[in-house]
């Protein structure tokens, strides 16, 4: 599903974020990405959804060579990758329904299909009753559930989540994790960067640790491994 071959990433200001990373993530895996701040986790994720391109090396997502992608092809590749952020990134002037439907409108799905599928995923994340609300009227946990609904509405093969529980209290974080686990159970690959020790240690998954731009640990059913 995701393959990185000797990936190097140096930013324009000379910061080197990744130094020769190679990794293979299979279909339907759930991977935690851990490591100190500034270790390269965010760059690792940005490379997957093509917000950045590698300085050196090749990365394949879903069979596409991400680094060699033509500008005009980017939107089509992103439609197969759902992205979830710590700060939710919902469109403030659109209702909950419209925020989720937007991702389907962008792929020019028929209106009836959009309506049916959008309500379906809103029900899945438990926010069907709030579909007419605006993001500012929702709690942080609810907003994150909306952003998850938006990420999965087009049935992407991969979900990339950059500290999805970073802004949420422990109970709400657990809700979000259960939701992600359910989505993973339905067949979606999930890569999630996190600093949440409790979650990593209680919901055991594959753990990839990154430090100074290198993978220093890669364990199935691993532990968080850092003291906070």
């Amino acid at each position: 599903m995701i393959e990185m071959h000797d990936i190097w990433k140096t930013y324009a200001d000379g910061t080197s974020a990744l130094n020769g990373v190679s990794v293979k993530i299979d279909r339907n895996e759930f991977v935690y990405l851990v490591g100190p701040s500034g270790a390269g986790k965010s760059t690792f994720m940005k490379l997957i959804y093509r917000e950045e391109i590698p300085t050196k090396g090749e990365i394949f997502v879903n069979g596409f060579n991400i680094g060699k992608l033509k500008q005009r092809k980017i939107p089509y590749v992103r439609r197969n990758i759902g992205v979830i952020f710590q700060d939710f990134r919902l469109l403030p002037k659109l209702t909950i329904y419209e925020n989720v439907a937007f991702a389907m409108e962008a792929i020019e799905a028929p209106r009836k299909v959009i309506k049916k599928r959008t309500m379906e995923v809103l029900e899945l994340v438990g926010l069907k009753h709030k579909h007419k609300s605006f993001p500012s009227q929702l709690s942080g946990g609810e907003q994150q559930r909306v952003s998850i609904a938006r990420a999965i509405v087009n049935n992407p093969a991969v979900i990339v989540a950059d500290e999805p529980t970073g802004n949420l209290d422990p109970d709400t974080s657990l809700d979000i994790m259960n939701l992600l686990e359910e989505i993973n159970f339905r067949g979606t690959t999930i890569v999630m960067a996190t600093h949440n020790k409790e979650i990593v240690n209680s919901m055991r998954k594959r753990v990839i640790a990154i430090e100074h731009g290198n993978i220093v640990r890669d364990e199935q059913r691993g532990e968080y491994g850092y003291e906070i």
Partner: protein
Amino acid sequence: MKFSTLTRHIREGFKSILRNGWMSFASITSIFISLLILGVFILLALNMNAMASQIESQVQIRVFLETDVAEDVVADLQKQVGNIPEVSKLIYVSKEEGLAQLRDRMGEDNSDWLEGYNNENNPLPITFTVEVFEPKLVKSVADQIHSIAGTYETSPVADVKYGQGIVETLFKVTDAIRNAGYIVVAALSITAVLLISNTIRMTIVARQREISIMKMVGATNSFIRWPFFVEGALIGVITSVLTTAIVLIGYDQIINAFQYELSFLTMQLLPVKEVMALTSLTMIILGSFIGIWGSVMSVRKYLKV
């Protein structure tokens, strides 16, 4: 693009205007004010232009004949002068008419000056009042009259007058008025474009984050651009039509209110139907263009995420 997607974009454009209430209000206000000022100045310029033309059209050539010209020579000269292509009108003023006109002009108080003169001892010559199609040609027409007069054995023409010296100054003034009108309107148009596109740019900068989110979920550039295009066009068209209507209705009111107060002036304001086409065309085209151009240009800047 699918038809349903197009209707979606139009729907989203409308929705966006309503949801971004204050931002839309700012754009609409800035387009409204710029176009209002522009419209007022277009009307001013058109009227000044008309007044300048009206003043110029009053420029006439007066041809004074010698007192003792034979009737057939007068008739021949009248025909020849009347045949000059630039001449639009030639009025024959007989000695009697000339005296009557002079009495009129002198008025009651000075009528004693002309006492004792009657049709028997009328000292005035026959004159032609010549009007030309293009006021600026008076000098060349006057020269032509001189040269026609020169073809006779003895010149039947005593003098040709068109306000030499004064006319040139008059044309300079009317030209200056016209040019000032054009320059002010052009400068205001440019100011309007800059002011409005700046406002629109600000409203879109505020939505930069929205655009980057849209790209993140896999929307293509054109998919993002369309609703902004619709929004800009709607704001531009609606506001400029509204402003044009207000300007023209206001102008009509002014004409009606001052119809009698201004009648002591020989000048008349142009009627609405004469200024309507040019004013509304300029304003609506400019307004719509700015609305569309402003939004398209600003979105373009943020699409390269």
